[in-house]
């Protein structure tokens, strides 16, 4: 068989699912430090070595690695989820600099899909190099000179006990956490969106902002402003002030 053909065919088809399960545990044993297992014998007059060390292979320098961002860095975080289009524009201001726009802040957002589910994480399990939709509705952008980041997503759904929301974690350029917060939604628009499309079967949210255990103390700094419609999609605009 040509190697190319073999590569295309993949492991699952060749071995079958029943083979996979024991294999996962077989390769997941506890950590063993290299120092404690690699024996290197040195000092012989002939320069030969024994034990488990191996001559380093000579190899061309390529393929040349290049600096590349986390797979979280995405503008369109929709992935394979469907729903009413939502453009999220978040502006970050710095309270420690007269509320001026904070450039180069790292902004992570994540929210649930129309059915109220978050991304299923791989945990400590196996991942595949060609699997691309592992973290739907989660993304990262860095603020521009105006302190602005923009994401394309879908209108979040809801899950029992919480009012609809988007999680936001803001870091400075060095990765130091500045603020963990949530964005609240407009009740009237929620009622419109959840009455149609992929949201309809899940019905209206069971928790309002005022009865929510996170937003219940007031959403003055957390409620975003909205424009748009179900047909055209919505635009969310929100300003978050941090101590940058």
């Amino acid at each position, binding site marked *: 068989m040509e190697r190319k053909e073999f590569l295309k065919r993949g492991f699952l088809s060749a071995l079958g699912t029943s083979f996979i399960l024991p294999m996962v545990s077989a390769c997941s044993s506890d950590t063993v430090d290299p120092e404690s297992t690699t024996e290197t014998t040195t000092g012989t007059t002939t320069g030969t070595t024994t034990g488990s060390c191996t001559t380093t292979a000579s190899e061309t320098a390529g393929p040349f690695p290049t600096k590349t961002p986390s797979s979280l860095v995405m503008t369109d975080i929709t992935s394979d989820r469907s729903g009413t289009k939502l453009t999220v524009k978040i502006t970050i201001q710095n309270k420690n600099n007269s509320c001026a726009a904070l450039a180069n802040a790292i902004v992570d957002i994540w929210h649930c899909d129309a059915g109220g589910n978050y991304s299923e994480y791989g945990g400590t399990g*196996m991942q595949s190099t060609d699997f691309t939709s592992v973290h739907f509705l989660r993304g990262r952008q860095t603020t521009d000179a105006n302190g602005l980041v923009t994401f394309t997503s879908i209108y979040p759904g809801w899950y029992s006990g919480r009012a609809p929301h988007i999680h936001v974690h803001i*870091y400075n350029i060095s*990765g130091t956490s500045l603020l963990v917060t949530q964005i609240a939604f407009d009740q009237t628009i929620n009622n419109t969106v959840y009455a149609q499309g992929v949201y309809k079967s899940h019905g209206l949210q069971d928790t309002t902002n005022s009865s929510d255990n996170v937003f219940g103390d007031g959403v003055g700094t957390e409620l975003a402003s909205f424009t748009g419609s179900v047909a055209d999609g919505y635009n969310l605009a929100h300003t978050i002030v941090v101590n940058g």
Partner: protein
Amino acid sequence: MKRLIQLCYRKIIDASSEKAWDKYVFDDTWMEFFMQAQTYTQDGKYHTFQEISDKIPAAGNMTYMVSTAAINYIRQLNDIVPDIANVYGKLCLPFKRFKFEIIHSDIRDKSAHKVAIYFYSEPITWIDKLDGKLLVAYGDQREAFKSGQEVETELIPLQPYLNISSVISGIPAEFREIDYPLPTSENNPS
């Protein structure tokens, strides 16, 4: 009997790693750990990956979140396992699947950061072991051997952290050797 095997290479990356690719993975996974861990370390109670994993159930996705910093580097490998070379000194082992592991990490000390990536090879037919090296052919070649076809092979030295992680030693019934009696008088005592 030819066996179908899977090799697994556990590549360890820490502060002593020297190759450019390894350094990128080290730097970026450390930064991602530092960023993600702050969700759980704001009260200053916990600092290490072990403490956070043991004490905070919500941090169960930490390994996956940190792996997001490595996956685009892993894709740059073009599905060939790093470091594992054949006797020509060429990288040779195809993989599609991997597992990321945080061995140790501490938000206070980047130099203590240590991760591992398990690279699981695609299936390989194991033919023999020669002088500490595995003689293998890529893919499932058991049928080709049975039918006497010429099969391209590769010699891969055994080395630290390279494990045979699974074996299929059985052969599907339709390929099984049938022990035909020889057509001589020895087989026909009458």
